[in-house]
């Protein structure tokens, strides 16, 4: 518990400092204040991908070892990954609206894949919520987590393929390499969001352990049915 609080405290400091660096970073003349969105957009999406990667790792780990803690890792990471991905996509849409006058572009493989991925892991989380038995849940979630990691790169590849072969994409201003005065605040924010991710993971796994402890009752299933009180039958 103490370690989690310390982690959140560190994450708070890092985020405040990251925010400060984001607002003092030089502005791109063409894009204006909205450039600052990228200091949230890029780190959150990057970490969302990392989080889903950890879900895949946890899933495969569970299939191999059958240890419950791999499942906790996979489940917690998927939840936080979805959260980060939603924040990342949302900031991207705001930025896109401001800069290109278009919030969404179906031709953008990264954008589309990220949106698809959110649904893949929402489905994963829905599956987890539908199964009460922790052992059954772990097995099935691990299977879906593994299929997802095989399929998501194919989603990215196929969407990208549609884009490149249609060749409707205009050249974007984001192809340039990043200058240091933007790169450094970016890395600081990436670090801050990483610490936040770790803190959230620790908290989620902790809460998961509390939930598991609560769901394991000392109740014996065989006691669920009690003998009918035939003597009371007249009272019905």
């Amino acid at each position: 518990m103490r370690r989690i609080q310390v982690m959140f405290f560190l994450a708070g400091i890092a985020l405040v400092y990251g925010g400060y660096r984001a607002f003092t970073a030089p502005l791109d003349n063409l894009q204006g204040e909205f450039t600052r969105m990228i200091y949230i957009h890029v780190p959150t999406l990057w970490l969302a991908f990392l989080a889903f990667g950890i879900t895949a790792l946890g899933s495969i780990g569970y299939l191999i070892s059958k240890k419950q803690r791999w499942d906790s890792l996979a489940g917690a990471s998927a939840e936080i990954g979805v959260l980060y991905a939603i924040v990342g996509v949302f900031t991207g849409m705001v930025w896109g609206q401001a800069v290109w006058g278009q919030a969404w572009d179906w031709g953008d493989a990264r954008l589309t894949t990220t949106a698809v991925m959110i649904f893949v892991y929402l489905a994963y989380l829905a599956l987890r919520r539908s199964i009460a038995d922790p052992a059954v849940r772990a097995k099935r979630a691990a299977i879906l987590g593994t299929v997802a990691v095989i399929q998501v790169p194919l989603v990215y590849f196929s969407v990208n393929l549609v884009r490149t072969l249609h060749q409707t994409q205009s050249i974007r201003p984001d192809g340039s390499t990043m200058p240091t005065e933007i790169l450094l605040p970016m890395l600081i924010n990436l670090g801050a969001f990483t610490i936040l991710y770790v803190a959230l993971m620790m908290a989620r796994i902790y809460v998961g352990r509390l939930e598991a402890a609560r769901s394991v009752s000392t109740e014996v299933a065989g006691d669920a049915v009690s003998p009918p009180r035939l003597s009371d039958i007249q009272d019905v």
Partner: protein
Amino acid sequence: MSLSTQIREVARADLVVERRTGDTFRIVLPFAVVTLIIFSLAMGGEVAVLRNVGPAVFWAISILFGMQLALRTAALESPTRRDLMALLGLDPAARFLGRTAASALIIVAFMAILFLTMVLFFAPELPMGWVGPQAAALFLTAIGLAALSTLAGEVAAGTRSRTSLASLIVAPLVIPVILGGSQILEAMERNSGILIWILLLITTDLALLVAGVGLSRPLEEASR
């Protein structure tokens, strides 16, 4: 029993059950055709518009309905029957492959009829020599859709909202299959190669089949 005998037997039984119930062609197909009509009415019935959107509407409806067809088989199976199958010595890989094969056949027949209906209603412009490539597209799409639905059906088996949950699992993951299938005619119209799309479909199908076979044992354990 050898794997291939078991695969064939699982597929055969599923197909006989399908023929007996007749759900696909008596209920699901008419429903899909009605949906096609609703689409054309909702778009104002304008010939020029319909000509353009026809194929897209076809793909959307085929995926949604095809998925339901494949999920039905898993949903129909009672837990006691699952137990019995395990005790018969049925290899879980044979179970997965046989079920996928049966579903793929049903889906491909369903899609073929739906496609011809769409051509009739929407009169899209089809490129020369479309029959072969489109048949390949439908066939390869059906395999991917069937494999993914079989997996999802088992993963969601026995949960409260299994059919809708399994649909939610399949829909985002099936995107490479839809894209591959739908781009083949488009590519022919643009005179760009269709090989890449066929390859995408084959890659996706293979990935799903390998995943299904590889995961079939944990999948079998997980479904009880």
